């Protein structure tokens, strides 16, 4: 059977094309991830310090499309509209953060994270303009006095006492007592009823007499991004996306490596025959009898948890089955006339194996590569799930490991458990579909 035949027969198989389509989507996702998402994000994956501005265990943003009452979205606003205003004696930097608030619930706490360079004692003022036109003064405080030019970082939380006090002084806007409510429940409330007021809010920060001023407004919420966040505040979308190229890499490299080595091993044994064959097959038996998962665990515990070592270990256990099958195929092929002819012509063994026998088995090898990808991916996911993964790269298995160790299943954090497993399954299915339809085209016995 030659390749054009295989191609045309594969093109007729619907399931194979579906698999190919899924694989194409995964590859596109990987390419987009690698090019569009800064590589720094995956290096920071296991660094809690880089996720402090994110919400804890927030559901994915799209749950609001399905829900009747909108859950507040967690917003990180880091590009304010900055203008310069000339005051009487000094210049004032004004930064405006616009927020379109549409939720039916009050938001979580908010915080202003700022960084400034100044000398002297500048004054920072914070106010909010509500959709109904009311302006609430939130804060007016001076930054600590400094004689020399200094760098200053600070955070202002919505739980700050000064904000609360200022709001109480403005209680005339509201027709009900606001004393018992927190700042977030006053700012975002209707004036006649304690309900959220939807619309465009604008937080205005004014600082006088500073050289530079840079701020970020984080408005707390319970949904975030495409995939939500986990207990450690990490954006799961980033973990899931980075997991794709890693999983594809592991799966394809392991499958390719183990099938090729199994193929060469088996064909050589079958072609040589006799004692070589016997001893090689006994070696094969030894590897076959090793309990694979325990050995993989022992190996990764005793050596290191580097992902490249793990790929090597997975290959060690992956080639055995292929070697057995390709040996029996080689046994059949070597009795054919063209092999005899090549031998009589005095060709070297290596040439006969690589030029005449292996090309005959190639279609089978291709199918086996596709079929062994899912096993490699699930095994890696399993090892990572047990906590033996390489912490330098986020993988789906590691996300699930963290989910398990934080009791996500029993606590109902479904967005932490479902997507990584679905990704593993989709990747596996893509290759299984391709492999199955390849196999049924190269192995006519299965076609009936």
């Amino acid at each position, binding site marked *: 059977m030659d390749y054009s035949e295989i191609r045309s027969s594969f093109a007729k198989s619907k399931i194979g094309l579906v698999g190919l389509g899924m694989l194409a989507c995964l590859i596109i996702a990987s390419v987009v991830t690698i090019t569009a998402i800064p590589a720094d994000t995956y290096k920071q994956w296991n660094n809690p310090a880089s996720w402090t501005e994110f919400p804890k265990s927030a559901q994915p943003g799209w749950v609001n499309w399905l829900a009747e009452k909108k859950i507040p979205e967690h917003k990180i606003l880091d590009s304010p509209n900055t203008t310069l205003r000339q005051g009487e004696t000094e210049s004032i930097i004004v930064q405006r953060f616009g927020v379109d608030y549409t939720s039916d619930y009050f938001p979580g706490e908010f915080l202003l994270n700022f960084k400034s360079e100044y000398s002297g004692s500048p004054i920072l003022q914070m106010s909010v303009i509500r959709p109904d036109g009311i302006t609430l003064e939130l804060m007016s405080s001076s930054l600590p006095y400094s004689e020399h030019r200094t760098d200053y970082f600070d955070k202002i939380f919505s739980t700050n006492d000064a904000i609360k006090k200022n709001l109480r002084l403005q209680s005339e806007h509201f027709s009900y007592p606001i004393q018992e409510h927190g700042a977030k429940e006053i700012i975002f409330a209707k004036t006649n009823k304690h309900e959220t007021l939807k619309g465009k809010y604008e937080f205005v920060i004014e600082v006088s007499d500073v050289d530079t001023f840079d701020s970020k407004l984080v408005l707390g919420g319970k949904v975030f991004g495409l995939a939500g966040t986990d207990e450690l505040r990490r954006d799961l979308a980033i973990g899931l996306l980075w997991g794709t190229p890693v999983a594809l890499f592991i799966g394809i490299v392991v499958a390719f490596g183990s099938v090729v080595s199994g193929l060469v091993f088996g064909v050589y044994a079958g072609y040589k025959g006799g004692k070589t064959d016997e001893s090689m097959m*006994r070696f094969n*038996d*030894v590897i076959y*009898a*090793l*309990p694979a*998962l*325990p*050995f993989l*665990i*022992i*190996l990764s*515990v*005793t050596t290191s948890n580097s992902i490249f070592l793990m790929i090597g270990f997975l290959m060690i256990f992956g080639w055995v089955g292929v070697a057995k099958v390709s040996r029996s195929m080689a046994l059949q092929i070597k009795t054919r006339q063209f092999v005899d002819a090549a031998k009589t012509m005095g060709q070297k063994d290596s040439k006969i194996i690589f030029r005449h026998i292996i090309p005959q088995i190639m279609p089978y090898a291709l199918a086996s590569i596709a079929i062994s990808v*899912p096993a490699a991916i*699930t095994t890696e*996911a*399993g090892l990572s*799930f*047990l*906590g033996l993964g390489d912490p330098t790269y986020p993988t789906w298995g590691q996300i*699930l490991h963290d*989910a*398990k160790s934080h009791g*996500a*299943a*029993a*606590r*109902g954090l*479904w967005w932490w*458990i*479902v997507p*990584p*497993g679905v990704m*593993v*399954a989709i990747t*596996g*299915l893509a290759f*299984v*579909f391709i492999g*199955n339809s390849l196999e049924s085209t190269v192995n006519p*016995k*299965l076609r*009936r």
Partner: protein
Amino acid sequence: MGLKRYFAKRALVLFGVLMATLLLTVLLVGSNMDSILKKGIAIQVRAEIVENKELTAGFAGTDELNQYIDSQIEKRTKTLGLDEPWHSPNRIGLAMYKILILDFGHSAFLTSDSGSTSVGDIILEKLPRTILLFTTATVIISIIGILVGAAAGSKVGSKTDKITSSFAIISSSFPVWWIGLLMIFTFSFWYAIFPARATPIIPPTDPGYVASLLHHMTLPIITIVLIGFGTWAYLVRNFMAGIMQEDFIFVKKTIGIKQRKIIFGSALKNAAPPIVTILALSLSGSLGGAIITEAVFDWPGMGRLYFEAITLMDLPVIIGATYVLTVFFLVSIFVSDLLYGYLDPRIRTG
């Protein structure tokens, strides 16, 4: 008599494989084992000498005492043969001999529930639990798988066949342990029907223990069967599909023998040898439990034992468990070879 010789040779080969596996395990963990043993001796000697007040009082200073301790440690290391490097043939030979006669020694950290540190006791305690869950599940899987597979394989291309095949393909690409997590989420959190942990809280002496155990076991069993039977059904279907094309089946059909009788009487009988082989292998495989599935359901069987032993680097337990599982695996290969010879007359005649 060729058959007897064939099996004798096969048994010999499998024994060789067992030895090679054992050697590999010992080599892999040997260096760590060595340092653990030496540390153990040092701690033991120190504790003994410090407890012996009369002896410690006789020394002039700490230097002298330390010297004495060092010499004692060295002496004991020598008597145990640990002064040779761990990779010396003598020590590896001794270690392998001990394992071969099932003397696994004592564990470094883990104990059985009754407090025994003997590796043999620990394994004997965990093995029945694994058999209870995984072997039961394997039996259920194989029964469902054979029935569904036979039904699908007898009518290739029918709706049953298509549903079975696609279910098998799809279910095989989901990791069992992930489905386990989802099952816990659905049936322990969403609908609180089954407990999330698979082990009962009440002691085994309580009369309600069996009922409680069954209740706890339900969720893992459902999970394992759900993910497992598709693959089985698919394998059986493929064997059956081949056999249903054979001439003798057509003959039986034409002379009017009932479909059901053909499937379960003739076809399945012909497909039996490979099915029995797979059954033997998966039964022995089930004894190892499933490290990851047991971790998900908190089931205290062989898989969990393995994982705990590995994370604590409790090497005697690792070696013992590996050895026991490999023996079971090889025995089942051998038994399936025997059964193959018995079921398939072609092997007997030549």
